[in-house]
């Protein structure tokens, strides 16, 4: 009983919270395989998204916020081919009028978008993910380059992206906001640790 109380006091000193029990956590194994077919394994790096990260996101992307499920501890996966790092995989959620859209982002070692796919998207327009010209707008771009695709309201995508998205403008803006938050949070929380995989 004493040990139990000591451990509880220790936990109170941490700032973790995650709404669902940890037994429900599942690694996106099939999706990482799809984004990095040559990978032999993945390396998890867990970091905490807290209120200071949230404030940095609000500062960098005015009019934006993080959904409460985005706070707490999250995993960035390093796709490995034996001992070589191929790139990174990060899953983030963005609120939409069809519930949360969960997107799996593959990033290269310079934190540019390499590819992406929906883990969960319940929009009737989810076929947007098969639109190569839409995806190509993202691929190879870093945070600053993608930020230039935001319109002046800071929420919606500008016409460069919307022209490619055809009849799915709302979902296109959701994907853009998710991409920006993913790149920003990856750099803020994991950037320093990831330097060892990209020593140049």
């Amino acid at each position, binding site marked *: 009983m004493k040990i*139990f109380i000591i*451990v*509880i006091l220790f*936990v*109170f000193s*941490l700032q*973790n*919270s*995650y*709404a*669902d*029990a*940890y*037994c*429900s*956590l*599942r*690694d*996106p*194994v*099939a*999706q990482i*395989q*799809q984004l990095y077919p040559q990978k*032999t*394994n*993945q*390396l*998890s*790096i*867990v970091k905490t998204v807290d209120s200071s990260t949230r404030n940095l996101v609000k500062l960098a992307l005015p009019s934006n916020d993080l*959904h*409460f*499920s985005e*706070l*707490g*501890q999250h*995993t960035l996966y*390093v796709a*490995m081919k*034996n*001992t070589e790092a191929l790139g990174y995989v990060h899953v983030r959620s963005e*609120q*939409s*009028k*069809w*519930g*949360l859209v*969960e997107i799996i982002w593959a990033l290269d070692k310079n934190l540019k978008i390499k590819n992406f796919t929906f*883990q*969960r998207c*319940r*929009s*009737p327009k989810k076929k947007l993910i098969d639109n190569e010209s839409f995806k190509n707008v993202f691929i190879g771009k870093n945070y600053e380059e993608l930020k230039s695709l935001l319109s002046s309201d800071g929420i919606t995508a500008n016409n460069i992206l919307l022209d490619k998205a055809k009849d799915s403008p709302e979902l296109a803006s959701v994907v853009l906001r998710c991409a920006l938050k993913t790149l920003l949070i990856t750099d803020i929380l994991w950037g320093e640790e990831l330097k060892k995989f990209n020593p140049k």
Partner: protein
Amino acid sequence: MRLFTTIIMLFSVPSYGDFSDNLRVSLDGSARLNVNSATSNTSRIYALGLDTHKVFSSVNGDIGYMVGQLYLTKLSNQTPFSSLFDSPDDKQFIIREAHLNYTAGPKWLPNVRVGHFTLPFGLEASIDTNGRLLDYYHGKNLGTKLDWGLGLNKVLTNVEYEISYTLGGKNEPKTIDSSYVFSGRIGSLSHYDFIIGFSFLDAKIDNIQRKRLAIDWQYYWQTWGFLGEIAFGKDDKFQNKWQEERYSLLELNKTSINEQLKFYGQYIVTDRESDKKSQQLINIGISYQIDAKLELSLSSRKQLDTPESANKQNLVRFQLRYRY
């Protein structure tokens, strides 16, 4: 338990970084109020526990992960009470999930899970209900929800599967009166909008032999979900006298677009050869996730048919849950 501790130590040896790397720890507390109108009884269940998740890694990548959930659970006037307790006001340390999953094998080999885990069967295999009012009735239908043993699992390109052999001792890591549970499920990937799974179970728990085959599905359309589980099988409670049993659960749920509010309704029909008529239940529940830490939930269960020798079930439950 000793075996489990030894395995944790073996996992830790090649780990890269210290034990706190990739470690999640949350304090999980809940207070549940149960108002049972059928028996004119009001009871409470309090639980305070630690929920942990740790990924073990080497320079080549992840080796596996561990889940550990230990809860101090206190009953207050709870009748009937679970076999894990000794009286209606008892308190006990309860292990919920406590397992290691070794994931570093070659691509063609399955992952290996060892410990205390949820039986891979039906809806519960892909939807966690531990500590929630939402339930898919593993314990009632299969004899236990969690058991100690060994499992093989893998997520492939188009399907995922898990098969396990466990000891049938429920909360105890041992066989009791030749108990065992052999169960498994194969299904489409659990992140899709349409998920279908097939399960089997062959078990002997508490001297009751059970055999089951089941199909389960989940279909999500925007913020709506339509879920179901249909199981067929037979029970042998009295030595070589098998009795057929059919069970079906249908659920319709709806979440708000920010996913803070969730409503669900379940219709459950159980048909037993030993009973003259089927048992029909309705569950209605609502949960409100105020933030990442605090959740309020309310549920009501009503029996539609009139049982031969008992009152109709009529239970209202309220739960406050806080995770830190």
